[in-house]
């Protein structure tokens, strides 16, 4: 098996729209995911993340470009790629008339996994996702977060070599999200590869070895979360409420972003003292903290991840 789990080259997807210009959902996406990696596609709603995942998981045909899963062309020979993949679809739900235990077991059996192995993996996945206590309750009686955990359990139980997870932790409480993250780490340690989409910056940072920021169907930047944060131009973030009016005075210290009347400046530790002196002279309050992925995203995309 090749060491590259997924490779796309100049992948495009254009949706024709009746009586309107076509929508270009993907505008030439090239990326690579190596075996054993956890890679996040990070982007705002409508950036093209789900379209990419649908093409990669053989459910949508690309307009042009190439995409391969473990060396198999997803567009030309999808039937060869499919045994290697499993997908947590966005907004997917377990069958309401099945319990989480039945849901996971049935899915594994449908994938051709033997009874005993399916049973063992079902129990393991339910345990990992903290679903043992509600494993025998009908899914219709579960909370939204529990249902989502049942979906993730269904897919991680497959132990497929390449897992696609489209917004896997949406609707989960912080504790459950961390359980999912831990399971993903375990899976990649065991040799699986994970490509997930998310618009949770903390999730992308905590979970991914590398991430791709996508905006308007294009990869804007790729690298580790640390690479991205370094690219912002400093490691310290200073927030000055009411400082937006004085943006020109602060621009020499580093990159400035205004949001309402607040001013955020990214600065190197060496120039922090000088900046604070100016803030005090300008009678501004200041909050100082480390640069996060949010600033990196804002600088790269020009908009906040939650902004539509």
């Amino acid at each position: 098996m090749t060491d590259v789990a997924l490779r796309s080259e100049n992948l495009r997807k254009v949706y024709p729209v009746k009586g309107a210009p076509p929508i270009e959902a993907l505008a030439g996406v090239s990326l690579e995911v190596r075996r054993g990696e956890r890679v996040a596609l990070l982007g705002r709603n409508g950036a093209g993340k789900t379209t990419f995942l649908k093409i990669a998981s053989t459910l949508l045909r690309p307009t042009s470009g190439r995409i391969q899963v473990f060396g198999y062309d997803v567009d030309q020979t999808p039937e060869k790629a499919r045994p290697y993949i499993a997908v947590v679809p966005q907004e997917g739900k377990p069958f309401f008339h099945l319990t989480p235990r039945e849901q996971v077991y049935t899915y594994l059996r449908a994938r051709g996994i033997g009874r005993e192995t399916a049973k063992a993996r079902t129990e393991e996945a339910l345990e990992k996702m903290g679903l043992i206590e509600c494993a025998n309750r009908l899914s219709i009686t579960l909370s939204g977060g529990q249902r989502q955990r049942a979906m993730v359990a269904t897919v991680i139980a497959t132990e497929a070599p390449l897992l696609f997870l489209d917004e896997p932790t949406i609707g989960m409480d912080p504790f459950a999200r961390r359980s999912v993250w831990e399971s993903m780490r375990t899976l990649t340690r065991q040799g699986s590869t994970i490509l997930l989409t998310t618009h949770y910056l903390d999730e992308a940072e905590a979970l991914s070895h590398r991430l791709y920021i996508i905006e308007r169907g294009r990869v804007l930047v790729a690298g580790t979360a640390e690479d991205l944060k370094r690219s912002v131009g400093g490691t310290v973030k200073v927030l000055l409420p009411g400082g937006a009016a004085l943006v020109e005075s602060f621009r020499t210290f580093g990159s400035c972003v205004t949001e309402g009347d607040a001013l955020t400046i990214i600065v190197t530790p060496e120039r922090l003292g000088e900046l604070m002196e100016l803030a005090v002279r300008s009678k501004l309050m200041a909050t100082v903290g480390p640069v996060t992925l949010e600033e990196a995203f804002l600088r790269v995309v020009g908009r906040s991840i939650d902004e539509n």
Partner: protein
Amino acid sequence: MATSMLVQGVLLIFVWILAPSLLGVAFVGAIIFSTFTMGQRVLNEAAYIRIDHKANDLYLAGPMSPEAYFLGMSAGILVVYLAPVVALGALAAAVVHFTLAQGLLLIALASIVWVFSASVGYVFSTFFRDNRAIWAYSSLFFNVFGVLPPVFYPFGLFPTPLHPVALLMPPSGAAAIAQMSLGITHLTSGELALAVGGLVVETVIVFLFAIYWARRTVRAD
């Protein structure tokens, strides 16, 4: 399951009260109608789990083939809804006193109608983007094609110029063959050939098309 027997149950009661001599015809029709409306269940279920649960994404982005998905779902629905049909069959056997050959023929006809309707149901399920539209149209479609033609009543009561149409429609064609085997209806050899040929050929064509369509629609364009 209870609702799946509603139309048949009501019609059987009407026949029992208004024309008890036609109870045999009505039982045969009810059995064929029951397997025909399983296509409606396939349509509803396939569309619902695709739209609401994203089950297609979960199952088809994996080693399961699209035709296995279609056949597995149809068979699953058959299993769920089979119990009331078997109960209906037992009741029919008690009332009509089938011979073994007549009983086996009825099972074969009902099975062919099931293959036809499940195939139609699956294909139609792929056209819908909204569950609310499905429930309205699917009930109308299956009830009209299962109730208006001579499924519950003797084939001879249907207007003569429309006989070929009724014979070419799988539920009424199958019902006409079953009625003939019970001696309730007389079909000429031409009419019998039309009914049998129509039923088999249409079912094979629709089934093969459903297989092709399942493969074709596994990926969106």
